C-alpha cells in the first residue's frame, strides 16, 4: 500500500481548533482544567488527553507583525524514534498506511518512547500507558479521514497519498517540511514561511545516541555476545582447557 500522510498547510490554518476538539470527540479524551497564562494557547503543551493542538506564534512588530498557527502533533516519522526505542514489539508500530500506531495492551510503561521522540510527542496517561496521535488509525483503516482532517474547515489539514500531497504542496509553491527527514515524516508541513518562523527544528533527527544504541551497539553487541560464547567453545575444542593433570603429564614426560 502506498504510504499515506498528513499535509498541514499552515497558510490555511485559522486556529479555529476544530481539529483539537474533533480529535477529543472521536478518541473520547477528557478535558483538563486549565488557566489562562496570557495566551490563547491552551493547554500549553500536548497532554495525555490532547493529541494535537494549535501553537499560536506571534513574531515581529508593526507592519512586519505576523501571527502564525501551527498544528502540533505526532509527525508519524518514517524512521520513528519512539518505535526504535520501544522494547515491546507491537506496542508502537507502523500501520499499513505508514502511521505510527500503538497498542496500549502491549505498552510496558517503560517511558522510552517519551524520550526517544525528536518532537517531544508521546505522553503517558493515568494508567501509565503511552498515548499520542495515531492518525486515527481506526478510521483510516476503515477508509475514513482522520477526525481532525475531516473537521478542518479550510483544508489546512489534509490526509492522503503521501507522494501526491507532496507534489500538490510543491506545485503551489510551498516549502515542504519533513519530506525526507527521518525517512520522511508521515505528517508534513507545507510552510508559508521558514521552519524558524514556526519554531520548527531545521533538521529534525533522532539523537545520535539512539542510532548508536539501536543500530550499532545492539547488533554488534549481540554478535559480540555470541562471538564470546563461540570463542569459548572454539577454545575448548581446539586449545582445550588447562587441565590440572597437564602438569603431572609434563613432569612425567620430562
Amino acid at each position, binding site marked *: 500500500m502506498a504510504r499515506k500522510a498528513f499535509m498541514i498547510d499552515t497558510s490555511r490554518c485559522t486556529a479555529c481548533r476544530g481539529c483539537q476538539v474533533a480529535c477529543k470527540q472521536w478518541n473520547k479524551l477528557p478535558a483538563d482544567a486549565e488557566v489562562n497564562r496570557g495566551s490563547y494557547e491552551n493547554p500549553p503543551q500536548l497532554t495525555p488527553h490532547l493529541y494535537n493542538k494549535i501553537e499560536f506564534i506571534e513574531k515581529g512588530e508593526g507592519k512586519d507583525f505576523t501571527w502564525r498557527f501551527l498544528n502540533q502533533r505526532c509527525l508519524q516519522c518514517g524512521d520513528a524514534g519512539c518505535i526504535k526505542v520501544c522494547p515491546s514489539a*507491537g506496542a508502537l508500530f507502523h*500501520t499499513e498506511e505508514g502511521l505510527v500506531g500503538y497498542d496500549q495492551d502491549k505498552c510496558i510503561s517503560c517511558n522510552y518512547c517519551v524520550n526517544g521522540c525528536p518532537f517531544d510527542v508521546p505522553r503517558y496517561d493515568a494508567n501509565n500507558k503511552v498515548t499520542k496521535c495515531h492518525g486515527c488509525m481506526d478510521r483510516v*483503516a476503515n477508509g475514513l479521514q482522520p477526525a481532525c482532517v475531516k*473537521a478542518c*474547515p479550510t483544508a489546512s489539514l489534509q490526509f492522503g497519498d503521501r507522494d501526491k500531497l507532496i507534489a500538490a504542496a510543491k506545485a503551489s509553491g510551498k516549502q515542504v517540511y519533513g519530506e525526507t527527514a527521518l525517512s520522511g515524516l508521515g505528517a508534513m508541513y507545507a510552510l508559508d514561511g521558514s521552519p524558524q518562523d514556526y519554531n520548527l527544528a531545521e533538521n529534525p533527527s533522532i539523537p545520535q545516541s539512539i542510532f548508536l544504541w539501536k543500530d550499532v551497539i545492539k547488533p554488534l553487541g549481540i554478535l559480540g555476545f555470541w562471538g564470546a560464547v563461540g570463542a569459548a567453545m572454539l577454545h575448548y575444542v581446539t586449545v582445550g582447557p588447562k587441565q590440572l593433570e597437564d602438569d603431572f603429564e609434563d613432569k612425567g614426560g620430562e
Partner: protein
Amino acid sequence: MELSRRGFLQLSGGTIGATIVGVGLKPAAAYAEPLAIQYAKETTTICPYCAVGCGLIVHTRGGEVINTEGDPDHPINRGTLCSKGAALYQLRHNDNRITEPLYRAKGSKEWKKVSWDWSLDQIAQKIKATRDATFMEKNAKGQTVNRTDGIASVGSAALDNEECYLFQKLLRSWGLVYIEHQARI
C-alpha cells in the same frame, strides 16, 4: 533498510532465525478493529451555535449519542466543523446539564428541585395574577391597547423557527409588548 522499516513482517517460522540472533525484526501491524460507529443510527442536525448553519450527523446506539461529526453532504460545511461544532457531543454527555425543574423561593439562598407540574401551575398562576393586575385595555388617551407592561420577555435566537413563532404568539396573546431577544443586542 527503508523497506524493512515499513515492511510488514508477520511473525512466522521465517523469523525464528532472526529471533535467535536478536536482530532484524521490525514492528509493523495492520489495524483491524471494527469502527466505533459501525451500524450506529445516523440523524442529521444543524449546529446550535453560530448562524453559518453547518450540518452534523449524530450517531446513536441504544438511544444514546455515541459520536457527532460534520455532515459530509452538507453544502456549506462539507463535513467540517469548528471547535464549538466539534464539541456537540459534550452537550449530551455533560454533568452540568440541568435535568429537573428548579425553584428559588423569595429570600432563599438556594435552588430546590420541584416537579414540572408544580412549576407550570405556579408559573401559570403568576402570569395570570400579574397580567390581571397590570393589564391595560385603554391607554391614557382612551385608545384601545389591550396590553400589559408588567411582564417582559427576552429570548431566544436559540429556539427553532416553529418555537419562535409559537413563543411570540403565546406572549402576544397574554398582551406582552416588552418582547425582545438577542437580535437587539
